[in-house]
């Protein structure tokens, strides 16, 4: 494996930022987030994981699908597809696994071109975790803090700098085209792996997929949901939650007047934005009927989606949870997905 120094890596990032859209962990008002950076000095190097997952780079919290120009009995629709090549630096392995799961969903036929374009135009540069954070449990979910398998390039921080691994040809091209300075390092991959000893390996039991549906009628869901605020933050921070809403919004008057047709037409944008099945109105249909009117029903759906429905619908081969632990950190009433897993494991054993 090759070794690069912090300085060499920084100048590589600078040349990336000069030539394409570079997204990296950055402190925004003290909050670590994956955000565009212009210079390596903006990059946050010491972080457990950004507060929001890397899904934002492919599936933004709000994005425009269409611009709608509306005149008197005249409509013009303009697609809004991103073409820009981008590199995401500092991707954590839990997040890259999440991207793989989103890939399965968004690229299943018919593919979603908004996601697919961004994904095809993106190179993922991973950064192995030095240690697991207090709420991390990726090792319980089949992941690992130094898992390179869903990255294009993987970096392993060691004392002397970073070990560099080109995982895909796309990653190799990025290393070559922007000339990351590096040299052979005597540490082989096997030795390198042993440099990371993660203390929390397989901390929690992962129940069988069938165990979840078997507990569908469990009174437990209502008990857990009693304190749920239906605030939806668990879905927003989740690397695999992908539910969205679509609606039209008027563009500001100034922009409307500047419309190319100049005929006094008004402009709108059709946007999609993140949503979550824990929200009260999520499943309500026209006329008011709501098959998931109770919080317990909604929270149950969230967990069954993660561990049963989503894996089955999109043949994931694993649960749709990467063990990043963000929902545990973010929940204002301490609903803890690992406690739910433990409960299901316990009741399905008896």
């Amino acid at each position, binding site marked *: 494996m090759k070794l690069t120094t912090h300085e060499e890596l920084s100048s590589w990032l600078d040349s990336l930022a000069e030539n394409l859209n570079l997204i990296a962990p950055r402190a925004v008002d003290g909050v670590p987030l994956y955000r565009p950076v212009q210079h390596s000095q903006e990059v946050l190097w010491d972080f457990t994981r950004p507060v929001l997952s890397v899904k934002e780079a492919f599936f933004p919290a709000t994005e425009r*699908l*269409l611009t*709608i120009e*509306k*005149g008197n*009995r*005249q*409509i*013009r*629709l*303009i*697609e809004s*597809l991103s073409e820009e090549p981008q590199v995401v630096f500092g991707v954590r392995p839990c997040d890259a696994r999440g991207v793989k799961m989103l890939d399965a*969903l*968004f690229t*299943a036929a*018919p593919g*979603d*071109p*908004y996601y697919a374009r961004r994904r095809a135009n993106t190179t993922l540069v991973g950064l192995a975790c030095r240690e697991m954070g207090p709420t991390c449990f990726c090792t319980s979910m089949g992941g690992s803090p130094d898992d390179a398998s869903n990255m294009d390039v993987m970096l392993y921080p060691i004392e002397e700098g970073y070990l560099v691994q080109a995982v895909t040809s796309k990653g190799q091209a990025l290393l070559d085209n922007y000339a990351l300075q590096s040299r052979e390092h005597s540490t082989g991959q096997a030795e390198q792996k042993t440099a990371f000893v993660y203390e929390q390996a397989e901390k929690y039991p992962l129940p069988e997929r069938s165990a979840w*549906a078997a507990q*569908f*009628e469990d009174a437990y869901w209502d008990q857990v949901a009693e304190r749920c605020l239906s605030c939806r933050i668990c879905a927003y921070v989740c690397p695999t939650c*992908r*539910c*969205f*809403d*679509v*609606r*039209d919004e*008027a563009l500001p008057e100034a922009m409307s007047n500047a419309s190319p047709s100049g005929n006094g037409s*008004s402009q*709108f944008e*059709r946007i*999609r934005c993140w*949503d979550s*099945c824990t929200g009260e109105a*999520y*499943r*309500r*249909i*026209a*006329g008011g*009927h709501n*098959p998931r009117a109770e919080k317990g029903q909604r929270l149950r*759906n969230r967990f*069954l*989606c993660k561990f*049963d*429905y989503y894996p*089955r*619908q999109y043949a994931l081969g694993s649960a749709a949870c990467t063990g990043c632990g963000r929902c545990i950190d973010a929940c204002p009433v301490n609903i803890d997905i690992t406690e739910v897993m433990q409960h299901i494991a316990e009741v399905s054993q008896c």
Partner: protein
Amino acid sequence: MLAISERKNGANPMVPYLGKLVKVKDLAAEIKLFSVEMLDGGREAFSQYYPGQFAFLSAFGVGEAPFGIASTPERGPILDFAVNRLGSVTSELHLLGEGDIVGVRGPLGNCFPMDEFKGKDLIVLGGGIGGAPLRPVIHSVLDNREDYGDLTILWAARHPSLLVFSDEYEQWRSAPGTRLHLTVDQPDDLWDHNVGLITELLEKVSPSPKNAISITCGPPVMIYYASKLLEKLGFKAEQNYVTLEARMHCGIGKCGRCNLGEKLVCVDGPVFSMAEVGGLRESFL
């Protein structure tokens, strides 16, 4: 007339085709029937579609919502949609008139297996605006009358003013081997048909399950009790077809909104047999 859809990616399933409203008429109280002539690429996209499929209608500037297609391509290129004025999109649609442009995204979802229904007696149960996605089934049967057995239509609404497609009843009734039974919960002075819930009517008509298929669409509670009663009459779950309604935002299995347990109404449905959804842990009720 300018109606352009600029598609960088011809296959973008989230971009609607444009269509012109060629006719808007009152179908029932607060329910209008919109007849749409597709423009440009939409003609090709909707040159073929099947009973039970749906499409999103856009009221540009407000949003879009899914509706069952109430027409068949065999009767012509104009698409029909029955729209009940309930939310923001449907309220905006109700303000539109002939000549106005709407977006139409589809056709989406699965369809009734009309080929499998051939040679069988069909019992069609429509409740309120739930009758709209069943009209293509009725039209298909009437247009290929000799392919199917008896057609029994049970058509219900809360009030006579809410019965849909009443201008077609004579045509339905006069077709060979076809019977139409009407019922309302709250009759008015002029009402001279059945009074009561569709389940009461179903009990009275009591169709034989032998070589028969039932097709139901209506409010979830109606579908639930009608299915129970059909089972009591001897219909097996595989003989009972339903088309389900769900809130949805993509129609292509991405937005997650319409899940019913592990099923997605948009791509696994909206047409299901009760064998598929009757046993799901999560009820549509």
